[in-house]
Structure formats: C-alpha cells, structure tokens
C-alpha cells in the first residue's frame, strides 16, 4: 500500500471546521442579546421596586453615561484608570508567567509556594492597602501595585499548573532535540500552555481591573474609582451607575474577546 493510500486511509474523520453558517452565527448572537434584555428588564424592575430611588433606572443611567462621555473630565479619568490598569495587567502577565514558569521548574520551591500564594489570594487585599501606601505613597504606583496584587496570583498559579500538567513527552522531545533550558521554555513549554495562559490572563484581566478600581477608591484624586466614590459621597446614583455600566461593558467586551481567543486556540489543539 502506498504512503498516499495509507495517509488517506488513516486520515481521521476529523475534518476542518466548516465556515460558520448564518444560522450558527444567529445561535451565537441571540442568547447574549436575550440575556442582556432580561438583565435590563430585571434592572428596571428593581428600580421600580425600590421606591426610594436606591437604584437608577436604565434610561437615567444611559442618559447620564451619554453626558459623562461628552465631558473631557470623564475621559481624563478613563485615561488615568486605563493607564494604571494597562501597567498592572502587563506586569501581572509578565511577572505571573515568569513566576509560574520558575515555580514549575523548581518543583520543591513551587510545592512550598503554592499554598502560600493560595492563602494570599484568599486574603481581602484591602487589609494590605495601608502597607501598599507606605511603600508606594499616593498615586499611580500604588494603584498599579494594587492591580498586580489582584491579578498576579491567578496567572502565576495557572501557569505553574499548566506546566506541571504538561505531557512529559514534550520535555523529553526538547531534550533529544538538544534544546537549552531557555529554548525549551520559549519554543516548547510556552506554546504548549498557551490555552491555559490565555485562561489565566482572562481571569487576571478582571481581577487587575478590580484591584486598580479599589485602589482608586481608597487613595486617589483621579480615575474612575475615585469618581465613583466621589459620586457616592454626593449621593449621585446616576453617575455611580453610569460608571458601573461603562466598566461592565468594557470588561464584558474584553473578556469575550479573550474567551474567543482561548476557544480558538483550544479548538486548534483539540487533539492533545
């Protein structure tokens, strides 16, 4: 039997995914839209149920958001929060992956460090905020540090777990290819754990954003967190809700993008 015949014979029934059909696209789009509508209806219901006006209506929130988005001050706050968040996320990813790789390669150290990191992860980070202020003072560095404190641990733990669960044959292959430790990590270990890394980054993304916002709420004069707390002091419910909706939309869109990326990578590597 020729190689070609065998190849055809042994080619699995697995075939490339066909292009998404319009019907399939609808099936992907309709449920989130329906969910959003249900949430808005619930929100309206809650607004009506709380007669004291503890929750702004969707319409009032949207109107306030439009006003906010038309003001220069709002975009300065967005830029401030965005800068702190971008730094926190990038540093969480770089440090988290580096630390995760190191803890996976230095197995005894990793086994000691994992429970410590899990304990730290479960601590309310607000309790450590005075310490962060003492070290970094008021301003951008403290906000970034607070973002990292939230985002670093999940990325580290997921990276370490992904490497420790890596198929040993990949590392043996790297050895027989005579790759250096650095080259093995760069060209075998990291590509092999990309789906888990994206999942870790997705979780780290949300937590870093949360950390930065909490940081702004406690000790800052700028940023969306500060504006929200300021509005809380003034009893300006529409602004609080508008900022909440703006952040939620940003988080949902970014998270959806990362989730799609993760699914695409996992689909491609489905044979593992």
């Amino acid at each position, binding site marked *: *039997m*020729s*190689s*070609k015949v*065998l*190849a055809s014979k*042994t*080619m*699995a029934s*697995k*075939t*490339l995914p066909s292009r998404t059909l319009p019907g399939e696209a609808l099936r992907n789009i309709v449920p989130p839209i329906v969910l959003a509508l249900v949430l808005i209806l619930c929100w309206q219901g809650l607004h009506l149920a709380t007669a004291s006006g503890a929750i702004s209506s969707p319409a009032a929130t949207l109107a306030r958001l439009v006003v906010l988005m038309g003001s220069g001050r709002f975009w300065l706050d967005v830029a401030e929060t965005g800068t702190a968040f971008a730094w926190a996320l990038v540093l969480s990813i770089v440090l988290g992956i580096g630390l995760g790789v190191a803890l996976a390669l230095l197995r005894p150290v990793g086994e000691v460090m994992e429970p410590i990191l899990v304990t730290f992860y479960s601590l309310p980070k607000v309790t450590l905020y005075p310490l962060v202020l003492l070290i970094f003072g008021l301003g951008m560095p403290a906000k970034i540090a607070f973002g990292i404190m939230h985002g670093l641990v999940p990325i580290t733990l997921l990276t370490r777990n992904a490497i420790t669960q890596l*198929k040993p*044959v*990949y590392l*043996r*292959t790297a*050895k*027989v*290819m*005579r*790759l250096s430790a650095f*080259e093995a990590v760069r*060209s*075998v270990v990291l*590509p*092999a754990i*990309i789906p888990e890394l994206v999942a870790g980054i997705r979780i780290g993304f949300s937590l870093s954003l949360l950390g930065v916002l909490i940081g702004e709420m406690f000790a800052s004069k700028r940023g969306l967190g500060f504006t929200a707390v300021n509005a809380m002091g003034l009893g300006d419910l529409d602004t609080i809700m508008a900022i909440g909706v703006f952040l939620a939309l940003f988080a949902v869109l970014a998270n959806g993008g990362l989730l799609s990326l993760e699914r695409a*990578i996992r689909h*491609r*590597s*489905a*044979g*593992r």
Partner: protein
Amino acid sequence: MTVLAMASRDAPKAAIEPPAASLRGVTRHYRFPGGAKTLHALGPIDLDLRQGEFFSVVGPSGCGKSTLLDVLAGLNPPSEGTASFEGKPIAGVPDGIGVVFQEDASFPWLTVEANVAFGLKRAGIGQAEIDRRVDYAVGFMGLRDFRQSYPAQLSGGMRQRVCIARTLVLQPRLILLDEPFGALDQQTRLIMGDELLRLWRETRATVLLITHSLDEAAMLADRVGVMSARPGLFIDIIETGWPSDRDSRIVADPRFGEMTGRIWEKLRTETMKHMQTQGAGPR
C-alpha cells in the same frame, strides 16, 4: 547466542566496523522518593549495536526496556558502567541520535510542516536546506497532502509519522524507537513497519526498536534482544537472518513462525515471572 542458519547481510561487516553504540556493564538503579531503598531496574548489560543494523528489544513489562533506551539516548545516565556512541562516552544527548517515543509527541500548536522543521530550525540550518529536507521527509512519510494540517486533524498513525519525519530530517545515525506503534491497530502497525524498513534501508542508520510485539520484533530486526524480568538483562540475542529488502510479507514465510516461536520460548518464562511478581500469575 542463538543464530539461525541463515546469513545476515551485515555479518562480515560487523566483524570489521566498530560498533555504532556500546553498553558495558550498564546498570540503572532508581531511588524511591524519600527513602534509602533503591529499585534495581536494569543490568548489568553488555551490548554492541552494529553499524547499520536493525536491533529489536523485547521483554516483559517493567523489565527496563525504556530505561535501556533512555541510557542510549543520553536522557538517563547509567548508575554503573559506560555507554558510548561512535566510540565516545554518552554524556547528555549526543549529536547524531534521534528518538521516537511511544506517546504522541507532535506539537499541536504547529502544522505538520512546522513540526517536521522544528529541530532543524533550532539547529540553525539554512532555510533552503530546511525546505529541502522537510520536503523530502513529508514526501517519504506520505504527508505531502497534509503539510498545512495540524496534528489534531490527523489520525494517531499519521501523527506518529510526523514524529518519525521530525526525527528523520535531522539525519540521525542512530535511531531509537520506543514502542512507536504501540497505540496503533495491527494492520496499521504492519504498514508502519514496512515504512520503517524503507526508512532504515534509505538512511542506512542504525536502529534500535523497543517493542512488546513479537511479530514486529521478528519482522523488522536483524537481531532480536530478549530481556529478562526486572532487573532487565539480555537472556538471548537472536539473529533473524532476514534479507535487507524484507517487508511485512515475511510474516507469511514459514520461517517467521519458527522465529517468533523461538523468541516466545525465551520470553514466556520471564513473562510468567513478571506476572507472579505482580500477583497475577496462573493458578
């Protein structure tokens, strides 16, 4: 040593040429975690792999076959004794040795073509030479139509072909195969065996194949090493005497049955010993 009354193609050559790889008094002990106890897994083993021969190793489960391969590959140093490749002691993975593992070692994030080129790129070989070797290897292994496919889109047999092609492009002088067809069905194994013989004839490399299949060992090899239950020792090395242009049709030859019978006779006692130590012996 049992030798069939048939001339091996390499018999005169073996007397002249130095061995491709040698093991002298090689043993391997493993220490149990946290204890002073050790497990004697292998040896002492003395073995010379002749230049360009196809050598199969069979033995009961857990007898140290894969440990033997690891020692030869430089993945696992011997506890005692010396291992050498082309006259030089093995310390780390030597240049010129290629290994194909039992598990699917294809990289799922790379296409077939990129998988095959992987080792060449890391070895700093020029792009033109990479293209030439990859083109040859994917053609040789029947993967030409699947160059841009990902491993997840291929069957188990084809993924193993990708791994063999990835080893082949590095032009190893000693190819170590650790039950590479273990996960495949019998028919595909026979066909893959033919491919392997074709590869061996083409490259003139020395091949060491670890296998559980007596048929596979007898069909493919110039010599079959039969190992004892743990600690693994060679209890016999049998010359098959097959012609070099053999293929899977040899299984229909009456001498093939005689050969597998001879190997099984040696192996049966050892397998029963292994089963008894595992508490699964015949009642």
